[in-house]
């Protein structure tokens, strides 16, 4: 056998023969029992905790995805010029998705904006609760996907390339690179809406070319929230314990006749984990354990906020128990206000504003916000011009991927700041533009990962989350 020295030497000498990634990886294998680093030549198939490239700020992330394109000029990005010239024709070129209803008539926001908090960030009257946490969030007003379509931009955010399916999603990358801290729960969990799946369906949390273990585990929108978590009623309790004890006896005997087979050991462990999950997951999902005050804080006492609030609260409980990445989705795309934007926005804001703000406040009061990233945002924004429907109350806005807002909180993002600008009408991001690839690079950075060295080898090719598209860590918004 080759000694360590000669093997290293061989690797150094033959680096070109097997490729540099293989080299990095093979050298890492020599480093004994330290947690494995993540720049691997060969995909790993486990969720063991892994070493990061540098000290991480964040340990977990909750993403409140707002499908459809929240109208930034009505919510987060006040545009006095737009109000001033409301009703006149916009001079610049616009790309419309709905050409049949296209209009160039500027449409000033019907909602009032006001400065809030110490930082004085202006928000619309539609977001009274977000206004209360404005000193804890970092509002980015210069997001840019360059494409107006929903799917194109959604896939860009999740998978790294506009419009392209079949790639692992952000949560997959994080879980692949970092492993899990929870011995009892899946590392990547998705909370869907009782109304149904979001646009683009299950691909929102797909594992793409990674193994299935890196895909999001969907919590059902109603009880039971995890599948296969409960045995048939007559098997519960001591009967299941007896069955499992017998099963594990069989498995251990089998292992004894195949000593040293790590897969068989892992299989025994996976039954133990499964048994633990049965109780741990039930416990994690049991929001009755929370105080009435907490229930109220998330709006569980009001029909409009109860459902979304419950999911926000569950998200916190999951992160509290070591889940790495939790993402909430809406059914369809409630922020896609092509018509009736005034009533449409009111209703979706009513549903989400309070629970989202409560989540940030709650994490903060529990001392978890520093290590947990909260993300709120959709895939696009909306146009400054009206989408005609004959009457003002029917008016809406068409898609806009040229400029829009999202906000981040916790996990080392600078609190109480706004970043970037759109033009005077809110049409295009013009200053400090942030793309979904920048967003991904920055998030990985907060987890202690270099996005361009967090590699997965697929079909012999190095893959990174951004697919090597231009991406930068947005240092300006990091504390």
């Amino acid at each position, binding site marked *: 056998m080759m000694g360590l020295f000669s093997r290293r030497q061989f690797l150094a000498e033959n680096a070109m023969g097997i490729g540099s990634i293989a080299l990095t990886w093979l050298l890492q294998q020599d480093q004994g029992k330290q947690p494995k680093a993540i720049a691997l030549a060969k995909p790993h198939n486990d969720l063991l905790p892994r070493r990061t490239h540098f000290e991480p700020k964040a340990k977990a992330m909750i993403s409140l995805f707002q499908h459809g394109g929240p109208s930034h000029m009505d919510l987060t990005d006040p545009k006095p010029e737009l109000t001033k010239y409301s009703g006149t024709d916009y001079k610049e070129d616009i790309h419309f998705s709905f050409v049949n209803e296209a209009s160039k008539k500027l449409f000033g926001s019907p909602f009032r904006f006001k400065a809030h908090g110490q930082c004085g960030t202006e928000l619309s009257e539609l977001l009274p609760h977000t206004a209360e946490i404005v000193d804890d969030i970092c509002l980015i007003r210069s997001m840019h996907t360059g494409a107006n379509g929903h799917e194109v931009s959604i896939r860009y955010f999740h998978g790294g390339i506009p419009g392209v399916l079949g790639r692992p999603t952000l949560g997959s990358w994080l879980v692949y690179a970092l492993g899990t801290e929870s011995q009892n729960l899946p590392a990547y969990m998705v909370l869907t809406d009782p109304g149904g799946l979001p646009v683009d369906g299950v691909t929102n949390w797909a594992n793409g070319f990674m193994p299935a273990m890196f895909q999001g585990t969907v919590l059902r929108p109603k009880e039971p929230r995890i599948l296969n978590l409960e045995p048939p009623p*007559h098997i519960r309790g001591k009967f299941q314990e*007896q069955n*499992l004890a017998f099963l594990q006896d069989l498995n251990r005997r089998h292992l004894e006749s195949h000593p040293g087979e790590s897969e068989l050991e892992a299989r025994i462990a996976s039954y133990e984990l499964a048994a633990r999950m049965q109780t741990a997951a039930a416990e994690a999902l049991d929001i009755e354990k929370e105080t009435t005050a907490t229930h109220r804080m998330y709006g569980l006492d009001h029909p409009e906020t109860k459902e979304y609030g419950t999911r926000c609260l569950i998200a916190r409980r999951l992160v509290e128990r070591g889940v790495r990445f939790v993402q909430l989705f809406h059914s369809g795309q409630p922020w896609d206000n092509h018509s009736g934007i005034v009533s449409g926005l009111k209703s979706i804001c009513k549903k989400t504003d309070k629970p989202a703000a409560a989540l940030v406040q709650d994490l903060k009061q529990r001392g978890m916000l520093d290590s947990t990233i909260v993300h709120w945002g959709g895939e696009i924004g909306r146009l400054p011009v009206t989408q005609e429907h004959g009457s003002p109350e029917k008016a809406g806005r068409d898609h806009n991927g040229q400029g829009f807002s999202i906000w981040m909180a916790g996990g080392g993002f600078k609190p109480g700041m706004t970043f970037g600008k759109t033009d005077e009408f809110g049409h295009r991001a013009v200053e400090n533009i942030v793309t979904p690839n920048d967003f991904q690079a920055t998030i990985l950075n907060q987890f202690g990962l270099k996005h361009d060295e967090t590699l997965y080898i697929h079909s012999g090719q190095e893959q990174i989350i951004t697919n090597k598209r231009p991406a930068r860590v947005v240092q300006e918004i990091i504390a």
Partner: protein
Amino acid sequence: MSLRKLVFLVAHTAILFWFASCAKSQEPTFELHIRPILRQYCFDCHGATDKKEGNLDLRLVRYMKLGGDSGTAINSEKPIDSLLIQRVISGEMPPGEAHVPAEKVETLKKWIEAGAKTDRPEPEQIGPGVPITAEDRDYWAFRPIARPIVPEVGNKAEDRIRTPIDALLKQAMPLGVSFSADADRETLIRRAFLDLIGLPPSLQDMERWSKSSYENWFGQMIDTLLDSPQYGERWSRHWLDVAGYADSEGQTTADAVRPWAWKYRDYVIRSLNSNKLIDRFIVEQLAGDELAGTRNGDWTAEQIELLTATGFLTMAADGTGAGDNSPEARNKVIADTLKIVSSSLLGVSVGCAQCHDHRYDPISQVDYFALRAVFEPAFDWQQWRVPDARRISLYTNANREQAAAIEQEAQKIAEERAAKQKLYMAEALDKELLKYDEPLKTELRTAYEKPEKERSEEQVMLLKKNPSVNITPGVLYQYLPKAAEELKTFDAKIAETRARKPVEEFIRAMTELPDRVPDTLLFHRGDHQQPKQKVLPADLTIAADEGALPLIPERASNLKTSGRRLAYARWLTSGKHPLVARVLVNRVWLHHFGQAIVPTPSEFGKLGMPPSNPALLDWLADEFTRSGWDLKQLHRTIMKSTAWRQSAVRDEAKSAIDAENAYYWRKSIQRLDAEVIRDRMLVASGTLEPNLFGPPIAIKADDAGQIIVDGQQKRRSLYLQARRSQPVAMLQSFDAPVMDVNCERRPVSTVATQSLILMNGEFAWQQAELLAARAMREAVPLSPEQFPSQPQMPTPLTPEWRYGYGEFDEQSQRVTGFTDLPHWTGTEWQGGDQRPDPTLGWVIANQNGGHTGARFASIRRWTSPSNSRIRIDGSLQHGSPNGDGVRGRVVSDRRGLLGQWKVLNNKAEAKIDEFVVEAGESIDFVADCIANESSDSFTWTTKIAFSVTEGIPQARVRDSVAEFHGPIAADSFAELPSQLHIAWRIAYCRPPTQAEFQLAMAHVAEQLRAIQKDPRGIATGSNITKQVLVNYCHALLNSSEFVYVD
């Protein structure tokens, strides 16, 4: 394979290269060390293209010295000042994000310092692009396949060298490592079955092969398995993985269903079962349409088979017919198809050469487009055909005529119907107009009967004013209900007639448009909007020696098609191609052993791993092509080796040397594929439906959104519909591929969700129940030697309600002489078939009460199943004024008399307040005649309500009426041992050892006791014996032994 195993393989094989290169020179040379760096970082701009950036050409050292616009790239005086080094160190080169890593810069420096040497004199001239060098050609995968000399190693008998495979493996083994003993016969039978047909042996198979006294039983068994139709089902799955088989189109969110893909799946099964030679198999799949020629009358069976084969080229995700028919989408279909072709047959990733020369392997962008040109006439992106436009109808002329004739029939009926309808409409109008007087009546009729467009304004107004006259066929039923009914019968007849048309089936084929051979243009940076020069069809340049690459015609003169794919397929299967045979035998080896000789089966290039045993790989490849590409023969060759037949058991000493079994000194255990796990469960439960072929089995989302099989489908998993967006949850959790492009190799994961699915999922429980039922049916009595000393089974519990007779003893205040009534009439218990019974008299027990006897009381006995508190509510009634009435007593065998009532033509509430009972305590409801038994029919209904209990849910109630029963078999545990035994044999294809049987019995005995104490452990409709058996079967199906094969 684990990471450690991969590391080991690299280390092991590469060590040879290392020594070789060390011996040659310690200094870096251009060919070995520098050129790969330049290929990776520089050649895109300074070599591959006609115009070199800054006029700097890095392809030859003398060009480097010559330099470009900025001067020489190599400064031999001051190496560190060389522009080549400086530009790289400063990060200026290469432009963009990528940088040359420090250790490579170091290599560059060392090389220049040592004089920028080459191993050989450089060529006088080089052609365009980056030339292929001797080093490139000397790479193991591109060398011609050479049959190695099979070494005479070891002692044939002692080292158990059965075949050349063993000799080649033995030769590579280090000291201290040698083959293990052969696996025992039972293990070999299981292994062979699961390997070749993906199903476990039945009890009869086990019996047959384990007892066969035929010397060559093993060879005979392999032949039998290879001849069975299940062989094709199993091995087609392996090929369908790399072919990227799916029953949906993918690419768009809708993921439209791909209705006829299954015909290709069936073609693969058929081909493998008939042992179609693999060269032919490949040619058919790549160019079946070119072989088939044009249709002359009906498609012949042979033509259909050939066209079906081209389904292989239609496997890539293709959403062009389902909403995204953009040029990007079309070109993606082509790129994906090339990926499927190259990863399944060539084992190299050509994809990166779509945009630029391959960074690691000698595959240029021109090569990529030359390969694309082979397929371009079929995949003409400028005159694109969406999937439906490519499908071929299997209607014969006869079918078509028949269909036309039937349509004529249908038309005839339709005409009859129209005539009838006209009559009825007129009738309805006449009837309606009766309501009107003249002249309005005539005016309305005139208006109505005028064609709509010709009506005058007044007429329109008139009809509007009198809406009920506007009779249309749609509302005819409101006027003449019967007429409408009659018309419906015509509709049904028309539908029936049309249903008689022969079913039109299609195949999903790949063909070329006649008389069109599109040009293939190289796309700059892979962008179809930047087409450059025309590229002619060819294989990869590296695939043959210079000048030896066979010509692929731009347009064949002897065919109606371009002939490109046919020529290409023939070259691939000529036996001279360096990659194809190696790739194929490597895959076959992988499936037999769970580990491949080249661990990266679709990446034989530098990004993959080298072969662990190059000689073995080449021997197999050569043997395979020599045999005429006979796959079944290859299976035999492999399976007859000691390497395949040896035991899977680890040996400590050998493990210490080679823990990962890289040298094949034992057979590695293998986790069964997802499909095999599901299929094996169906076999164990005895419900697998063995029929072959056909449209895919429907799947559906359950109420939780989890994808499951629709209904009670029991066919092999191969036939489940493979929707890209809707993977069947259980299969996916066990690593079945979800096709994006194709699956080059399945990972083997072990995660808790698998355990949860098997532990709690409905499917595993259903199969456990079926296996238990089967064990009950098939159990055979165990012989004493199979069943020597076993753990004590608990005593079965008797039924809670019993019906008997006896007496109440005033002295002891207890019931004495309780005896079950011996005769059941079908509705009542009594003393014998006569009434009154000569001995027992009139004693009767029925649902609501019974009759007392002269000597004996009628006693209804209830035995408490648990320690509890109970309350008794009851009603005792006597309905005759004659006689002296009836006395009722409630008596506990532990506590004595609890209450008594007398009734005579009246009713008493027979209630007992809450009291404590123990498990097994009898509560008797004793009815006697007082003195006179005449007219002593009585009604006595009782409800026993549990309150505080141990193990019984609160408020559970026993009801003497509802639970009244005739004879029932008391729980019997007598059959359990034989049932456990056979279930074990069915699940594991082997009997349990004594110790295992003991373990099983002990577990079952323990669970019986637990359920006796707490009957909540029994499912509704089941009983204790069955339940423990189901639970036990469920554990077997969950166990490692069930999902692994050794």
